[in-house]
């Protein structure tokens, strides 16, 4: 697989790994990012891996663009193999519908299904986390069934509570913090995706598999209490 390099301003370099989203490309993205972070060159500040790219931020006082590019090329030459990182499966419990998922009815109607069928489809899939971005701990998740796809709302909501599970187009996602947004909201998870007190503040990592599990409202409250208590 080929790599290409281009500047992202005067303090970062973008490594492009293929043009299309693919499993192999994403493994490479993770490999490159992990490699750099495990043996950080003296000029490295941090990396931001995405679908097909890894942005490498560097200190221009320690190395200029050409130097960083040359060192990265050499490093990537030496690492032809993809590090097969362990694939974790993370279960995300969700309390669907009601106040937590005010758009569940809409998603059902839009697809000619009952709310129960939407939940059954949403909980039957295995999803992959492609990348973390947009908001702290926010996973870009692939693998949702098109049977429950739904367009974004015409006018975005000003506040979507943290931990809300939603659908936008063919994507499903979980909001880690309160944000405005146009997603159709179908439920809420008691689990915090953003954990600022942890060394790794994101519950999910790129490459993880996710399964959603339906829980009741009382289970939600018990779980949330436990989750919140864990870290305070």
């Amino acid at each position, binding site marked *: 697989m080929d790599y290409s390099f281009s500047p992202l301003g*005067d303090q970062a370099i973008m490594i492009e790994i293929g043009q299309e989203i693919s499993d192999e490309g994403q493994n490479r993205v993770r490999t490159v990012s992990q490699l750099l972070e495990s043996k950080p060159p003296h000029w490295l500040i941090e990396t931001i891996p995405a679908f097909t790219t890894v*942005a490498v931020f560097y200190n*221009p*006082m320690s190395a200029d663009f050409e130097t960083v590019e040359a060192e990265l090329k050499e490093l990537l030459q030496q690492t032809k193999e993809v590090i097969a990182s362990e694939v974790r499966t993370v279960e995300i419990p969700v309390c669907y519908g009601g106040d937590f998922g005010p758009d569940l009815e809409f998603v059902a109607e839009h697809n000619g299904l009952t709310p129960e069928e939407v939940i059954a489809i949403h909980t039957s899939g295995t999803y992959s986390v492609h990348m973390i971005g947009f908001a702290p701990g926010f996973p870009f998740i692939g693998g949702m069934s098109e049977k429950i796809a739904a367009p974004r709302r015409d006018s975005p909501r000003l506040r979507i509570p943290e931990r809300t599970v939603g659908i936008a187009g063919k994507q499903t996602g979980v909001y880690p913090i309160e944000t405005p947004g146009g997603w159709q909201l179908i439920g809420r998870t008691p689990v915090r995706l953003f954990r600022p007190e942890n060394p790794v503040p*994101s519950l999910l990592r790129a490459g993880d598999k996710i399964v959603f599990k339906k829980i009741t409202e009382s289970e939600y409250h018990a779980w949330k209490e436990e989750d919140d208590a864990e870290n305070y």
Partner: protein
Amino acid sequence: MLKIIKSGLQTTVQDLGRYGFQKYGVIASGAMDPYAHRLANLLVGNEENAPTLEITLVGPVIQFERDLFIALCGGELSPKIDGQKVDAWRPLAVRKGSQLTFGAPKTGCRCYLAVSGGISVPEVMNSRSTYLRAEIGGYQGRALKANDLVEINPTPAWQLAAFDKALSKESDWQVPAPHYSMEPVVRIMRGRQYELFNEESQSTIFTDFFSVSSNSDRMGYRLEGATLSLKEPGELISEAVAFGSIQVPADGNPIVLLADRQTTGGYPKIGQVASIDLPLISQLKPGDRLRFQEISLKEAQRLWTEQEQRIRQLKISIQLKWEEWK
């Protein structure tokens, strides 16, 4: 201790940013004008990264609860201590009980208040910057409000010894301020997707004036002026953005991404502000205008290196000044 009497428009604790966590979607935050932030700290003998208060457009009223040194750097917001005008870009000795107020903003909109010893707030993910959206960092994860009491670290003994001398001695030295303007020329490099824009857009970005829309904040400045378009409309795969990335959403109005930018974005980037000129843009107010000029990556890195060397020299001259006061 700093006692906040009035909050001002938006006063937050910032340092040079939260790095190392962007891969988890955690935004960098930090001072919008890192140059002014760094200089303010150096003037009072702090580390460059020590937290300061970022004061925005309408300044707060702050009462100092002990004798200490402060420095104000950044935009000109007409600062006064106990009603007397004071200069920015130099250390000021202030007495316990004095009040700092601000007047009309002149040039620029963000002023950094550094205090000797530094502001004391807990570190969250290697930084003391306020991350408003996630309500973490800084002072309880939020902008300051009236009646807040902000802890500060002790003033070093060598500074206390200099206090009376500094107070009695009329000093007129200052460090040089950047050339802030309400109509700056901001140097940019071509962005990663520059070639995807049509020919007209590729040239208007460097010729037209753009004005800063009122819908602008620490996350980014929306610009109004010529609308920019792609040769062929299309979506990109989301990728990382950086401080100063100029992205163009479908409506064609460019957005310059600043300190509170998201970590990744899916809009094409037509340009990237040279790091050396970021303060020029961060100091603009809604309604101010700017023009972009092309700069090569090599030149941008050369100017940055030169600036860093100048800052090192300034640090030495500041230390010498302190020696005189001892």
